């Protein structure tokens, strides 16, 4: 492993911009393109939003753990919560699926965006409580 970081934050929406900026800055040593850095920022934002809205239902004392590793030219990011988890993960990963159909601000595209903007995406239970979203992206892979 070439480098490692861990950030623990409360599940407050005002921490979203902070979290995505920290991960983006951490990846800077790989000299990513603007497109690559924006893809990572968007994916991190989606994962953190899921923690805030779904895992903790806006209980802003919930904890979100963000871990990032640089291995070669690949960034590996894990975003974990200890919230309610997801009963059917495969179903939740379908485009436009949302448990908040009463809330018009939910597009149900969070996992689809993470999957599209990153190279890999894995969604698993976090032990007995919560969820871990693990994703990776190769930087400068086409240069």
């Amino acid at each position, binding site marked *: 492993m070439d480098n490692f970081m861990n950030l623990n934050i409360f599940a407050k929406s005002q921490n979203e911009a902070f979290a995505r900026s920290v991960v983006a800055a951490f990846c800077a040593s790989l000299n990513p393109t603007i497109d690559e850095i924006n893809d990572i920022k968007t994916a991190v*934002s989606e994962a953190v939003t899921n923690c805030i809205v779904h895992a903790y239902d806006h209980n802003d004392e919930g904890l979100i753990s963000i871990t990032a590793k640089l291995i070669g030219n690949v960034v590996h990011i894990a975003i974990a919560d200890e919230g309610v988890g997801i009963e059917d993960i495969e179903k939740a990963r379908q485009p436009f699926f949302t448990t908040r159909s009463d809330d018009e601000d939910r597009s149900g595209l969070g996992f689809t965006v993470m999957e599209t903007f990153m190279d890999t995406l894995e969604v698993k239970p976090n032990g007995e409580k919560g969820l871990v979203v693990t994703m990776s992206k190769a930087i400068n892979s086409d240069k």
Partner: protein
Amino acid sequence: MKIIHKAVGSTLYVGLCGELDESTSFTTRAALDKLIEDLDKTKLVLDMSALKFMDSTGIGVLLGRYKKLKARGVTMLIASPTPTVDKLLSLSGIYEIMPKIV
């Protein structure tokens, strides 16, 4: 998030300046809804040239506003999104219902 607007003829131009995510969605939605409530135009153009960041929460905000405008017979268009926002909007398929203009 800063929201500016200007009426020209039958069109209301609305500019979004800043970042649209979970933390700014509530105030953005409220501000847009206020503009829609007072709207006496037939077209609303959302200028996204100064929107530096948006995640899928923003897609939800746009869809909600689209429904309100459609119910009032108002056409909604998106203008000049930045490349990163454009990528997300394209992925969502939202241009099918609110076309992009340059």
